[in-house]
């Protein structure tokens, strides 16, 4: 089976302030994500979950080790080539929505296609918004939407482009239970047809929906679980 995302002996360190000591966050992680797979990354705060996600997606350069995205070594790509790779093949969903405030919901959904000079019809955009239940809010700007609605626009933006892999960083972290469940239901539709979802979460129920769960602790993969229950995930994190 081909591999969509692959990290090998990934190390990431951050200096504490200018000239301060270097703190290792990821200490040699090796993992693979196959097409169509839903992988959840869990672990205590500070275990390196988000850093792993950002390194995997090429948003954060690795200190050592190798990251391969769709068969291409991220470290060898120029900034522009990396931006193009992200634009054409990758979708991001962040905890803080990260919509462009000056654009309406419809314009936000259309933006990645516009940036990629890819044709996307008004019908496709409207369908993407309808899929996330926001037809009536299409002309609203982010400031006029609730947190859950903004996150659903962010999802519609990602789903409209049908990227090969979606990286989601705590997508329900800032949402109430009902909105979080809606967002998770939508995200769960991503894997399949060769598309993968890699999601960092604190939510045990959300993690339990994944095909595979990577449990991080102190910058290393502590456990790896296949189709676990929420209790399995809880036990793996706490023990």
């Amino acid at each position, binding site marked *: 089976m081909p591999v969509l995302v692959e990290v090998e002996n990934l190390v990431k360190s951050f200096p504490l302030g200018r000239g301060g000591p270097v703190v290792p966050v990821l200490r040699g992680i090796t993992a693979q994500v196959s097409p169509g797979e839903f992988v959840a990354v869990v672990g205590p705060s500070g275990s390196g979950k988000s850093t792993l996600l950002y390194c995997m997606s090429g948003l954060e350069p690795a200190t050592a080790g190798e990251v391969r995205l769709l068969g291409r070594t991220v470290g060898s790509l120029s900034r522009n080539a990396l931006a*193009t790779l*992200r634009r054409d093949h990758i979708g991001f969903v962040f905890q803080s929505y*990260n919509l462009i405030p000056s654009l309406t919901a419809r314009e936000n959904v259309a933006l990645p296609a516009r940036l990629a*000079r890819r044709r996307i019809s008004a019908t496709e955009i409207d369908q993407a918004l309808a899929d996330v239940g926001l037809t009536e809010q299409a002309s609203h700007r982010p400031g006029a939407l609730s947190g859950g609605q903004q996150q659903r626009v962010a999802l519609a933006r990602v789903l409209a482009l049908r990227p090969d892999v979606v990286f989601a960083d705590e997508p329900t972290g800032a949402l109430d239970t009902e909105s979080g469940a809606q967002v998770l239901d939508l995200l769960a539709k991503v894997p399949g047809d060769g598309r993968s979802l890699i999601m960092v979460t604190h939510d045990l129920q959300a993690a339990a929906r994944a095909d595979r769960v990577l449990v991080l602790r102190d910058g290393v993969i502590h456990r790896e679980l296949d189709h676990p229950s929420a209790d399995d995930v809880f036990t793996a994190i706490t023990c």
Partner: protein
Amino acid sequence: MLRLILSDLVANARIWLGTLLIALATGTVGAVAASDIRTAIEAGGTDALALYAISGVMIAFTTITALIVAGSVAGLTVALQQRAYALWQLVGVRPAYVRIVVTTQLLVVSLIGSVLGCLAALPLLGPLYRFSLAGSPELADLRPVLGAGGAVPVVVFVTLVVTLAGSRSAGRAARTPPIRSLHETDRPDQPMTAGRWVGGLIAVLAVAGIVASLPGTAPDQLSVPLMLIAPLTAGVLAAFAPLYLARLLRGWTALVPDQISSAWYLARSSTAYGVARSTATISPITVAVALAGGLYAANGTASDGGTVTAGSVVLLLGGPLLLALLGATATIFMAGRRRDREFALVVAAGATRAVVLAAAAWEAVIYTVTATILGAVAVGVAALAGGWAADTGTPSFGLAAIGAVAGIGLLLTLVATVLPTAVALRRDLPQTLAAE
């Protein structure tokens, strides 16, 4: 509380540096105008009469520019920190106290800036007078004087303008529910405040009064009143900007199709959405265009105009022009931190760095073209009034001056938008996105 104020000043150093810089520049420009009067008083006789003739126009130009630039910058200073004020309130600081703290910060920064500005003017006065009055040998022996009598009114004026303009914004910030401020971290709208209505209407009355007085003015006395019409009209346009600027921006930029480039599309939506920020940048450039265009239009229309010398341009326009262009650049610089996040959002949405840089450059173009349109309208009013009063039938529009100032404005705004964007793009994307 003192610790909170100081830490806030440090955390938002970029914004407060912009405010300090504008207070300093306004102080310097004001000191030059004040020294003209002080020097005239000291000199007495015919020398004084010559200097008084210059100082009236110089003070009018400086006052109009200072009111618009310092007012815009002070308002922007508060608007950019709305999120911080909301966080203060969430930890228990009362709204009234927020207002007091912000007003105190503005008072201290503008006071320091204007005093430094007056001090900075001292070594400039001699060379400036020598250059500007080189064509008037009878004034060659003049020694410029500023003194406390000249400096104190300048410091008081600058401090009052900055503090009062910012204080109103601080009051609005304190009244806004903190949750709303946190939800809308960058409130784009620019309210039409009572101060804007009053200032705008005073400027309208001033323009109307000058135009009404023109028919009775001797043809050889027309240039001075005509010179004042364009900057005052620019003041009217700046005061009423919240009523029309968003529509104007959307209107003229719609002439260029969005399809030409993603960068243009992004710049267009950003400038039309962030009206408060756009107004703060566009208004000073509008004034600069109106000042220069108005001077040359008046000179070309009035029979007493003669040739505008480099010295008279520097003396009359140098300070206000510098202040206006510096104000436009400073507002872009001050808003830079907020923009860093916006650029990161666009990159996260899939834009290449080239697209983001091009969008920043297009924003500079949009700011400058909009300001040039408005400045040209102001000059047009002056030119038409001059043509009507002088009965020449061929009003002069000072097009070369408008073009020159617009060109300088474009260059400065390009530097102010593109350079910080290039620096911002080198920063770590996840960190920038997680900054709030």
